């Protein structure tokens, strides 16, 4: 098992390294540099600026320096916001995004699993049909459409909830609902199909036959086995929620990383784009890594000798 984890960790580092390198060289591939578009600058000042930002050195030295800085959590200095460290920008805005993201993940898992369970237990009944229609809609309707609709109905027309901002519990409801629509739909479908499979398994029949009480069967056998696929989905779901929050923060005016990201892309603030890309990359790859590890603990049947299969 240690080997399995070490293996996964190694590949995570390789992916991360590729992402950082790709980010760096893509940014270097852009013709011109941050100072070419400004009004005519005297060559001496330009040279000073280059020195200040380390642009006078050969590319490979800049690359090595950038790698070293990133390892230490330093993403350089913003080019548009004078003298602002990218890592400071990330640090200041991360807490809002983190709160939103964590709440969204928790809500998505709880609601999704409950919905899927109900659908499976009342298979082919009204609840099942309603849940599955919701699930199909949730998967197909893009999150920004959901967000705009929710904002229009509940904030603008009914005035039940605040339209924008992020100041208290009430401000969470709409963004979280918009952000979780798709993951909930996906989890509900996963849970439903795996629970249906489990409900028809022989060991459930055995448990029933020996007279085990229905709640014990449900909690000891059905749910434990039924939510297994949900665990595998946690990694992709985190990615979904993190990238989704970029748009949702924009719509609901939440000052998180996503909003910084959109702004940086808008003004082409390359160090900030690079920094946030890499930050997101680390976050998402870590989530995937943790999911892989969690899966071994949840499912004792998992084959650890990957690479030999098929």
């Amino acid at each position, binding site marked *: 098992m240690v080997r399995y984890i070490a293996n996964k960790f190694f590949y995570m580092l*390789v992916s991360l390294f590729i*992402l950082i390198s790709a980010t760096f060289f893509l940014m270097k591939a852009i013709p011109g540099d941050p100072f070419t578009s400004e009004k005519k600058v005297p060559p001496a000042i330009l040279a000073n600026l280059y020195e200040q930002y380390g642009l006078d050195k050969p590319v490979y030295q800049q690359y090595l320096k950038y790698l070293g800085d990133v390892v230490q959590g330093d993403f350089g200095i913003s080019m548009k916001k004078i003298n602002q460290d990218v890592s400071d920008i990330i640090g200041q805005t991360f807490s809002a995004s983190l709160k939103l993201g964590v709440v969204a993940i928790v809500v998505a898992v709880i609601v999704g699993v409950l919905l899927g369970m109900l659908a499976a237990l009342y298979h082919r009944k009204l609840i099942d049909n309603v849940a599955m229609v919701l699930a199909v809609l949730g998967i*197909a*309707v893009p999150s920004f459409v959901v967000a705009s609709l929710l*904002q229009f109905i509940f904030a603008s027309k009914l005035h039940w909830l605040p339209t924008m901002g992020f100041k208290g519990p009430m401000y969470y409801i709409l963004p979280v609902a918009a952000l979780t629509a798709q993951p909930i739909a996906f989890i509900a479908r996963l849970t439903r199909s795996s629970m249906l499979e489990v409900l028809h398994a022989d060991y459930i029949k055995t448990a029933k036959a020996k007279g085990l009480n229905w709640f014990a069967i449900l909690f000891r056998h059905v749910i434990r086995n039924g939510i297994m696929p949900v665990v595998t989905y946690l990694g992709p779901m985190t990615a979904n929620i993190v*990238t989704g929050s970029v748009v949702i923060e924009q719509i609901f005016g939440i000052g998180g990383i996503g909003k910084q990201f959109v702004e940086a892309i808008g003004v082409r603030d390359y160090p900030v784009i690079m920094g946030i890309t890499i930050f*997101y990359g680390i976050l*998402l790859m870590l989530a995937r890594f943790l999911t892989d590890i969690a899966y071994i603990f949840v499912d004792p049947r998992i084959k650890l000798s990957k690479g030999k299969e098929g």
Partner: protein
Amino acid sequence: MDNNPIQVMQTPVDLKPEDFRKIGTDEKQAEVIQRESISAWRDAWYRLRSNKLAMTALGVLLLIVIASLVGPLISQWVHGYNYYSNDLMNTNQKPSALHWFGTDDLGRDVWVRTWMGARISLIVGLAAACIDLLIGVIYGGIMGYFGGRVDEIMNKFSEIIYSIPYLLVTILLLVVMEPSLGTIILALTITGWINMSWIVRGEIMQLKSREFVLASRSMGAGSGRLLFRHLLPNAVGPIIVTVTLSVPNAIFAEAFLSFLGLGVQAPIASLGSMINDALTGWLYYPWRMLFPAAVISLTMLAFNIFGDGLRDALDPKLKK
């Protein structure tokens, strides 16, 4: 006639005793196939046709495609304005007889733009899916067919690429390359083909140990012939399903990029960029957002439902 057992069974066809004849116990006769044989594709088509939901989705898709082709033309004929006209006296108008979906902040007709946008979104989705298909089939086919070392290395490579969040890569590429229809499609396919290659790999691995492959190989078929004449045609079902389901993903990704200002650039509009443009005044001019949003949601919904139906029809074993 009243005692005719056929009548009792109430078959819709009116059968008479004369219709029956003894064919005896001639062995040759017993082996003759009496009914027309149904190919796997016809069979799948029958199954698909009986799936009302999937057929509705197919109908909706066809309607959207047709509307995206002729929608702008209709306005040209009926009202005499097109994609490039703007009516600056009538900006942000509500839907009316003249402007069926209203107008936007530059007085452009939302009906025309919605269908032109749908055209662009569909082009992006279909083109991305086709490129994914091409790369995925070749890469996955090689992985699955050769197996062993080749498979291990190629699979590791695709796993590493796949583990990099694809929207980040796409965003990066589009920040560097100027967004245009071509670069957007390219950026979407940069990691999109991996899923397809895994599907193909899995199918080929299953198929290559089957008897008909052995038979073909023993008759001297080479790798190319085996792969393209025998293995891939038998894996077409899952491939088609994956393509169908990857179209809405690409359409969504393009819409997402539009939100970041990295989608197709003005004056071209996609459904995503229209929604993004409409977002600023959306609480006051909801029609600017609602129509493109409805079309994009319907398109994605229809593709998803049709894809599911296609999967059930092509692989009945999967259906419970």
